[in-house]
């Protein structure tokens, strides 16, 4: 049985279709990533799965409950980390957790028993009486994560969990999320941060303009969609060089003043590279797949 199963899901706002018939299956215990540029329909999909907005068509089953029909029952066993923190600034760290737990009808006594473990998990031990305004961005994010765990959920939705955090804070969150999957929780996260998806997700789907355009493990997606080696070149005279490169590599692209060459072997290109051009030779990554599939045009 799937932790989350979506069939033919659609949602329109006015004449614009934001989600155009998507299918998803998330296996219990896996970390599933939903990737896509801004405006691809990721956040709308999450809201639909939680039963917060009415779908235009299709079926959703979350932890065995039909959504939106029994969304309330499903949400009782789900945690949510939203894109923007919405902790209550009138309360302290501990009060935020107590109040949130009360929304799940958990007794105050039971919540208070869970709090030390939650704060330890969030790296906020000893801060239970701190006001929200005294927390850094990373701390708020971790507290939001702890808040999403207050009902001991089976599945946690995360909308861009590390956007806006510094590398230290990001790595700490990643480590905690891995710990959650080891504990057997199912994670569904949206991101447009490829490194995050590559590190955390067992499986992912790339979404663009309301459709799912690719699905699989990060390695499988790279193997399937892109050549293994990448050479990035920029500098004076790159345009002339690009013409030559086209005969030496199977795929050559230009973005601004940089030439991207993809291939199984880029040695012949490296040998033919003039000295005054700067280059970067690296293995292909998920970001290359993402850019190939969704294009290099700017999204707003």
């Amino acid at each position, binding site marked *: 049985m799937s932790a989350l199963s979506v069939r033919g899901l659609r949602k329109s*706002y006015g004449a614009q279709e934001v989600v155009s018939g998507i299918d998803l299956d998330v296996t219990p215990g896996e970390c599933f990533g939903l990737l896509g540029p801004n405006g691809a329909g990721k956040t709308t999909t999450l809201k639909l799965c*939680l039963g*917060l*907005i*009415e779908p235009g068509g299709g079926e959703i089953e979350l932890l065995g409950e039909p959504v939106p029909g029994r969304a*309330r*029952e499903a*949400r*009782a066993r*789900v*945690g*949510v980390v*939203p894109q*923007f923190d*919405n*902790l*209550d*600034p*009138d*309360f302290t760290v501990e*009060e935020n957790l*107590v*109040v*949130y737990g*009360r*929304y*799940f*009808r958990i007794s*105050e006594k039971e919540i208070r028993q869970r709090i030390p473990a939650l704060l330890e998990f969030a790296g906020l031990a000893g801060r239970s009486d701190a006001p929200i305004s005294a927390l850094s961005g990373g701390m708020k994010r971790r507290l939001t994560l702890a*808040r*999403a765990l207050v*009902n001991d959920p089976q599945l946690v939705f995360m909308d861009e969990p590390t956007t806006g955090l510094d590398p230290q804070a990001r790595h700490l969150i990643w480590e905690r999320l891995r710990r959650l999957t080891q504990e057997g929780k199912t994670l569904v996260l949206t991101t447009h941060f490829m490194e995050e998806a590559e590190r955390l997700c067992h499986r992912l789907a790339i979404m663009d303009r309301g459709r799912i355009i690719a699905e699989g493990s990060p390695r499988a997606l790279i193997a399937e969609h892109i050549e293994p080696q990448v050479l990035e070149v920029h500098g004076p005279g790159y345009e002339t060089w690009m013409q030559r490169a086209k005969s030496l590599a199977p795929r050559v692209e230009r973005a601004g003043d940089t030439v991207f060459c993809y291939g199984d072997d880029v040695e012949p290109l490296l040998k033919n590279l003039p000295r005054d051009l700067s280059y970067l030779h690296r293995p292909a990554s998920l970001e290359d797949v993402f850019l190939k599939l969704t294009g290099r045009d700017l999204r707003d």
Partner: protein
Amino acid sequence: MLVWRKLMAAAVLSNLADPLIMLFGLGYGLGALLPSVEGMSYIAFFAAGQLCAATMFTASFESMFSGFSRMHGQKTWDAILYAPLTIDDIVAGEIVWAASKAWLTGSTILGVAAVFGLAASPWVLLALPAAFLVGLAFSAAGLIMCVLARGWDFFAYYMTLFMTPMMMISGVFFPAEQLPAPLLAVAKALPLYHGVQIVRPLVAGGPPPALWLHAAVLLAYAAAGYALAIYFARKRFSS
């Protein structure tokens, strides 16, 4: 779901000081110039009106400004919606909360009036549930404004175009019956007038005439406001 909001009781103080200062300032100041009004001292007359007006203000401010802050600024409503609660629960919670806070304002004014000997009869105890009813009616109306608002300045229209004129014609400062007939008819269609019509006879020490009619109007405002607030809140949050 309301348990936690008790933590904010500290903020109530400011809701009480203002109406009391106004009560004593206007009540004693103007009262010295005026003979008795409807058989009461002016300050007792005004205390009954001020009880309803202050209750209205607390209910409206809480449901509009604090509600909007929780809904729009702090996104607290969004956070609550991830839990097994719905937008209907939040609307009901906000209305009952604002009405409770308003009731506290009304009952404090009543308590002060009693201490100063302005309301001595046991009948005034009935003003306590009446104040809650006034609170419910205006909290529900305020919450409609809250879920319709796109920005903070939206509330200024409601306050200036609706609340202030209503306060002038609803018998808070002077008997509404001395108004021209069309204005009196408008007052009678609005909730504040009916609150005053319940509370003033109670402060004077007797049962209000047509008590159930006035209570029914307030209840109708609360119920219709609740239904409309839920309708608009669902609309706002389902998109």
